[in-house]
């Protein structure tokens, strides 16, 4: 079993792709989530309605189906658009799908977090004559971050595990590399156990990081007791 029968490098490469996919989707998804939360608080009714539709639709449909729709649907759409066969890159389709899914859940987390910021803070910012940009930058975002962090942490753990689904459309991630290794060595037990161990490692490290972040975001907050 030395060097995992020569598949060690491949699996490490796959693990790297998994982390890269998850991190890219996280950054983009936080952006989508913030925009979604703003849209849900918009004064324009149709924007609120669109945001509601987005979160309801995405949260009610399996992630796997969303990935399949975007991958195969995207291929068909681009093919008709360019008039020749265009295949969507699995990484792009995967990141796109995960961003959309993560964004929908993050919208709800951010919406609740913004609501948790005491309205007195916002009124104070207005009383000081802060512009909208500075009000968000100095008052709302730093405070809602603390409320959003636990929910966001759970979403990150889900996102990390959902990356495995993109292997179904051919992304060369940890899951896919493991499947290839398991298939060619006829030793699925070992290889899938290794994959499980690696995912567990990622989630454990994430948990430690999240606990640290949460403690850090709590500094300057007085607790009773």
């Amino acid at each position, binding site marked *: 079993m030395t060097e995992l029968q020569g598949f060690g490098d491949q699996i490490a490469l796959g693990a790297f792709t998994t982390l890269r996919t998850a991190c890219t989707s996280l950054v983009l998804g936080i952006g989508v989530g913030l925009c979604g939360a703003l849209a849900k608080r918009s004064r324009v009714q149709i924007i609120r309605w669109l945001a509601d539709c987005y979160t*309801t*639709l995405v*949260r*009610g*449909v*399996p*992630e*796997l*189906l*969303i990935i*399949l*729709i975007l991958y*195969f*649907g995207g*291929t*068909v759409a681009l093919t008709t658009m360019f008039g020749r066969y265009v295949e969507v890159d699995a990484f792009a389709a995967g990141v796109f799908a995960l961003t959309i899914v993560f964004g929908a859940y993050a919208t709800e987390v951010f919406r609740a977090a913004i609501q948790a910021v005491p309205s007195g803070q916002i009124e104070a910012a207005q009383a000081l004559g802060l512009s909208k940009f500075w009000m968000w930058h100095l008052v709302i975002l730093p405070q809602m971050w603390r409320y959003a962090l*636990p929910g966001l*942490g*759970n979403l990150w*753990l889900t996102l990390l*595990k*959902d*990356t*495995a*689904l993109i*292997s*179904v459309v051919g992304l060369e991630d940890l*899951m896919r590399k*493991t*499947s290839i290794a*398991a298939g060619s060595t*006829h*030793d*699925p*037990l070992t290889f*899938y*156990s290794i*994959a*499980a161990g690696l*995912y*567990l490692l990622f*989630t*454990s490290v*994430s*948990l430690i990081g999240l606990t640290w972040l949460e403690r850090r975001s709590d500094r300057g907050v007085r607790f009773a007791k």
Partner: protein
Amino acid sequence: MNLHLIVDVLPLLLEGMLLTAQLTAASVAIGLLIAVPLALLRTSPSFVFSYTILLYTFVFRGTPLLVQLFLIYYGAGQLEWIRSSAAWSILREPYWCALITFSLNNGAYTTEILRGGIRAVPSGEIEAAKALGMSYALRIRRIVLPAGFRLALPAYANEVVLMLKASSLASTITLMEMTGTARKIVAQTFSPYEVFIAAALIYLGFTFLIVHVFGRLERHMAKHQQRAGLKNNSRSRVRAAAKISAAQKVAP
């Protein structure tokens, strides 16, 4: 967009939906059967039980369901003692592999959700039961489980929806549930939009159904609180929900 095609594939998809519904319902039922005793042990003062169960929930909640599914479906057949035992006739079938994996996975999540609910039961209620001379079993049956389950219900409804969505993974081990059927039809017709979107709408309807049923159940279980005045009730529920989410933060 070809509307005729959607109408044509709908009966086929509904056939797949039956398997989806069956897999979801069975996994949720078995998961609950696993979770109730484990959640009680997990909240028990026993260090050994609590940490052994934490290990189970940590492993199943910390790895992707797809890995678990493949590990059981492809991995189990590699062990000689399983192949030669009676269990092989079950583990050979993709349906049973999916059901076992989903139940264990759902059981792990449900254990932690119920644990959150049980921990949120006001200690005064349990002390009152003790003061009335109720035995441990009676206390669990009459106070801890009903109150804990009621507090955990919103989170549990989410978990059931997640299970419905997770059942789509069964298509990766050749099961022809709704996603599997949709993929087969797409491979034959190559019109991904119509077929996948039709499937998505059915899933969506299913999700609404689950949310609706649990909403009614929640209202039904909170009947005794409604007389105490709505304002007070909603506030205490918000507090309980905050307690549960705080309790769940400990594990992934």
